[in-house]
C-alpha cells in the first residue's frame, strides 16, 4: 500500500475508533489515536498477515501490549478482513467478541490477550523465541505505551530479548507522553527512553510516529537489523486527529458524547 493509501486507511481507522468508543459509551480513544498511524502501516504494509487465513503458521504476529488501545486493534483487524466491520459497534457489549481489552480466545486475529500492562511484551519475547526454535523467518511486533514502561516486567522482558538476541522481535513504544493521571514526567519519569533500551542492548530507532514515510523506513531498517532486537521509539500525540482530544490526559479513557463524537467524525472526514 502506498503512502496516500495508508493515510486514507489511517483516517478510516480513526473514524472506527470514535464510533467504537462512542457506541460503547466507554473505552480508550486517546492512546488508540496516537497509535493509529503506526498500526496502519504494520497491518497494511509491513506484516505478512491475511484476514482470510488468520492462522497461517508462517504469519507475522502483532501483540498490543498496551491492551487498552483495543479500539485501534479492532479497527485494523476489521479493515484487514478478520471480522465484519459492522461488528465494531458491539465493542465492550455483552456477548461481543470485542472485549474491553483484547482476548485471543474471543477474537481470531488477536495473538495475545492483553490489558495488564507489560505482559504482552513478555509474551512477545516468548513468541519470538518460539519462531527461532522452529526455524521460522516470521517476525513478532509488540506495541507498548510509554506509561507502560513503568512496569518492572517490561525491563525483565527487555533484558531477556537482548540476552537471547531476538532480532525477529520489533517493539514500538507509542511515546505520547501522557498516562491516566497526567504527563509521564509528573507521574513517574520514564525518560530517557532511547538510552534505557540502548543500555539494555537494543537497536534503537527514533521517529515521528505520525509520519508515514518515517514509519515505513524505520520498520524496514528494523527488518534488516541482525543480532539484537529493535525498538522504535515513536513520538506521538495522544488523541491525534481530533483537535479537542490532542495531548489531553482526560481523553485517555473516556467516551465522547454525541456532540463531541459528531465533531470528531467531521474532523476525520466521516459521519457518525
Amino acid at each position: 500500500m502506498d503512502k496516500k493509501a495508508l493515510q486514507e486507511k489511517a483516517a478510516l481507522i480513526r473514524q472506527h475508533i470514535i464510533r467504537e468508543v462512542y457506541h460503547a459509551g466507554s473505552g480508550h480513544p486517546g492512546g488508540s489515536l496516537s497509535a493509529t498511524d503506526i498500526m496502519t502501516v504494520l497491518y497494511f504494509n509491513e506484516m505478512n498477515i491475511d484476514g482470510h487465513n488468520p492462522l497461517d503458521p508462517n504469519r507475522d504476529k502483532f501483540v498490543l501490549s498496551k491492551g487498552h488501545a483495543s479500539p485501534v486493534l479492532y479497527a485494523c483487524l476489521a479493515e484487514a478482513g478478520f471480522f465484519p466491520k459492522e461488528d465494531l459497534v458491539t465493542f465492550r457489549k455483552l456477548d461481543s467478541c470485542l472485549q474491553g481489552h483484547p482476548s485471543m480466545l474471543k477474537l481470531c486475529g488477536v495473538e495475545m490477550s492483553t490489558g495488564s500492562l507489560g505482559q504482552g511484551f513478555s509474551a512477545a519475547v516468548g513468541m519470538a523465541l518460539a519462531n527461532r526454535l522452529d526455524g521460522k523467518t516470521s517476525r513478532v511486533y509488540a506495541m507498548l505505551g510509554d506509561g507502560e514502561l513503568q512496569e518492572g516486567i517490561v525491563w525483565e522482558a527487555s533484558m531477556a530479548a537482548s540476552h537471547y538476541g531476538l532480532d525477529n522481535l520489533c517493539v514500538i513504544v507509542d511515546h505520547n507522553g501522557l498516562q491516566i493521571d497526567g504527563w509521564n514526567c509528573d507521574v513517574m519519569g520514564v525518560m530517557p527512553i532511547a538510552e534505557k533500551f540502548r543500555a539494555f542492548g537494543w537497536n534503537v530507532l527514533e521517529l515521528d510516529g505520525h509520519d508515514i514515510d518515517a514509519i515505513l523506513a524505520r520498520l524496514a531498517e528494523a527488518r534488516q537489523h541482525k543480532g539484537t532486537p529493535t525498538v522504535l521509539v515513536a513520538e506521538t500525540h495522544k488523541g491525534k486527529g481530533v483537535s479537542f482530544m490532542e495531548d489531553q490526559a482526560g481523553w485517555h479513557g473516556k467516551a465522547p458524547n454525541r456532540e463531541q463524537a459528531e465533531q470528531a467524525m467531521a474532523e476525520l472526514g466521516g459521519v457518525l
Partner: protein
Amino acid sequence: MADKIATRQSYGKALVELGAVHQDIVVLDADLSGSTMTKEFAKVYPERFFNAGIAEANMYGMAAGLAISGKTVFASTFAIFAAGRAFEIIRNSIGYTGANVKICATHAGLTVGEDGASHQAIEDLALMRTIPGMTVLNPADDVSARKLLKAAADMQGPVYVRLGRAAVPVIYEEETDVQIGKALTLREGKDYTIIATGILVSQAADAAEQLAGEGIDVRVIDMHTLKPMDEEAVVKAAMETKGIVTVEEHSVIGGLGAAVAQICCAKAPAKVSFVGIRDTFGESGKPDELLEKYGLTAAHIADAVRAMQ
C-alpha cells in the same frame, strides 16, 4: 523403611523422559535450575532450555508466548515466586489464555526448612485453585509425581504442580494407576476418613496405622488433584464414614480442607476437621522440626481423628 525421594528429584527425572517423547517441550527456569532440578533437562536438551534469570514475572510471560506458539512449556521456580510473585501474570497470560504451560513449583510448604517464612509457600494451592481452568496437582511421592507430570504433559492447558524440597517416602508401586482428577485410596476404612494431599499423605497413612491399633478403622485418601477435585471420593467418605479429617502442608485457608468442606456443604453434609497451617507464617528449622511444631505429623493427624469421636 521405604525409600525416600524428594518430588523435585522426580520432576528432574520425569522431564528428561518427557523431553524424549515430546519434541515440543521447552523448559524455563529462573536461576534455580540446580534446586528445581530442571538442570537435568538442560543437560540433555540444552537447545530447549532457557534460563529467564531472576525474573519470574517475565518467565511466566515468556512461557505464555512460547505455549501460544505451540510449545508445551514447563516453567519452574520456587512455589513462593511462581504462585506468589507471578500470580497475576499466571492468571492473565496463562490462565485467561488457556496457555499450555505447566507451572512446576518446587520448595513448597514449610518443609523448605531453614530458609524460613519468606521462602515457605503455604498459600500457593489456594491462589492457583482460584484461577478458572487451572488444573492443580500436589503429588505425594516419587511414583505419583512422575505419573502426574506425564499426565500434565499429555493434556492441553495450564497446570500447577506443587513439588517439595525434602525427601519423602515412596508409597506407591511403579504399577499404580495415577490419573488426574481421580483420588487414590491407600486404605479402606469405615469409621473415619483422612483426606490428605502432597507430602503429608505418608504421615496420614502412619496415623491410620496407629489408630488401627486402637480399633479405629480409618480410610485414607490421597487427593493429589486439588482441581478438578474427585467429588465422588469426598461424597462417599462423607456418607460412608462418621467424619473427615483433611491434611495438608498448606494454610487451612483456601486449600484442600476448604475445597473438601465446600463439597460436603453442598452435597453431603459431614463433620470435617482440618490439619494444616493455622493463620500464621512459618520459620526456620529442620523440616521434621517444623512439621512437629506446626502440628503436621502423624501423631497430630491421629489426634484430630480421635477428637472426632
